[in-house]
């Protein structure tokens, strides 16, 4: 497949472009270290101390189980919002009335602070898996919904005519005309929702569950253990960066090769 070949040909350039990202990350680490030298380890532990602490957590076997629990909750909530948001958004986008009616509701959902949802979820579901999963779902849902809605609303009437004039069967019209267009809107929304889910789950766990990264953060805060707090934060952010740049970005480059190919 040509897209795939173009994608493989692009890998060296992609890896090479990684140097720029690395350079800016190291700049950030330098600033962080500078801050820690000014304020001391109690307020802002140095990057070295933080990663040493993270290493200790991993060695002690404490890190992976907590991260796994957190990831599971985030992914369940994300998958739910992805499925429900995509389907409902597409359906709403196909009808003018439905898309007009859903707009104010979406505005309300987007404007609602996640912490408010968390409080409600705590009242409804208590302390357990359901609370972070629900909070993630409800925070990600409007993002995916809007992406799907726009994808369906902007389906090009001119390309529909091409499909009819060239007698495309229904299945081919869907796979060659509608799907690529909708995916080009859905995919960025999915990525944004994934990042959102990862942030929301930690917040929800901090208040609602006895395990997971959020709970570990709550414990380290209670112990005034700044280094451990930083270590957990580094773990969460590091995982997100890894998923983003090693998995999502290459997929995105392939899916949208027709848009960005040079």
């Amino acid at each position, binding site marked *: 497949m*040509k897209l795939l070949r173009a994608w493989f040909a692009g890998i060296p350039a992609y890896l090479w472009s990684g140097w720029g990202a690395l350079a800016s990350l190291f700049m950030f680490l330098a600033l962080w270290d500078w801050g820690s030298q000014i304020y001391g380890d109690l307020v802002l532990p140095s990057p070295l101390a933080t990663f040493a602490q993270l290493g200790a957590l991993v060695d002690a076997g404490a890190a992976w189980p907590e991260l796994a629990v957190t990831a599971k909750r985030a992914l369940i909530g994300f998958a739910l919002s992805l499925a429900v948001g995509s389907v409902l958004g597409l359906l709403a986008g196909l009808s003018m009335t439905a898309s007009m009616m859903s707009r104010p509701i979406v505005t309300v959902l987007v404007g609602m602070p996640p912490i408010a949802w968390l409080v409600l979820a705590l009242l409804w579901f208590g302390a357990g898996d359901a609370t972070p999963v629900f909070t993630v779902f409800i925070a990600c849902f409007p993002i995916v919904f809007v992406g799907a809605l726009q994808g369906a609303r902007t389906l090009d009437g001119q390309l529909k005519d091409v499909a009819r004039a*060239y007698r495309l069967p229904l299945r081919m019209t869907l796979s060659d*005309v509608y799907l690529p267009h909708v995916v080009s809107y859905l995919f960025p929304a999915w990525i944004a929702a994934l990042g959102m889910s990862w942030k929301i789950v930690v917040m929800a766990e901090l208040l609602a569950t006895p395990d997971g990264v959020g709970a570990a953060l709550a414990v380290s805060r209670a112990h005034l253990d700044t280094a451990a707090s930083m270590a957990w934060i580094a773990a969460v952010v590091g995982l997100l960066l890894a998923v983003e740049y090693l998995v999502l970005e290459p997929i995105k480059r392939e899916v949208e090769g027709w848009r960005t190919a040079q």
Partner: protein
Amino acid sequence: MTLRVAGLGRRFGLADVLADIDLELPAGESVALVGPSGCGKTTLLNLIAGLDRPSAGRIDNGYARPACVFQQPRLLPWQTTLDNIALGLKAAGMARRERERRAAAMGLRLGLADADLDKFPHQLSGGMQSRVALARAFVLEPDLLLLDEPFSALDVGLKAELYALLLGEIAARKASLLTITHDLMEAVRLSDRILMMAPAPGRIVGEYRLERPRGQRDEGWIYRTTAAFMDEPAVRAGFGLPGQGGGAAAADGGSVVALASASAAGRTKGRA
């Protein structure tokens, strides 16, 4: 194989966009529909292409393989040039290897480079995109080509090249051609018969036959014939040109009119 349109009308809401259109297009003929913007040309073509439904009248399309070229290239932005050209073949269920072979051959014949075949539409210039759109239609080996001003955005050199490719293609296959245009010279260049349309409601107000065969028209003949054609009262009135035509005699109700230096004759069909 004939296209017959009888008493065709199309209303959008309360507006009559087309009224009482009669048109016949036998196999191998090339007809141009000319008229000012908004006279319903594109609506008529959409009806004939089956993209829209008439409010009145009938369309009997006896052609087996019609193909459309639209005003804009309208390529699928997420498919390569090759896949875009092969679109209709894929829809017909042709195997990948065969349709790619045909699409590549057609693309190269229309002046695309080998490297262009793997590119996406946004990487091609406007002229190249037009070639791809033409190739997408030609590769189906159509017996009827419907063109909706596909050349209007191109420069003169490119137009001349694509006209030659188009005329060669339809002559080789003895295909019929229905062209929509507001460029009178384009109509004179491409067609055997020109139908003049007028707006509100869209209707055919004049019909002119060009006697000289398509293959034997030189530039001088085309210029002279276009000039004479522009002198026709129905044409002047239709495009809102000021004053009366100078050279040609005023024509009404079926009289025969010479278009240019006796090499072409037209007849206008009077309509109330």
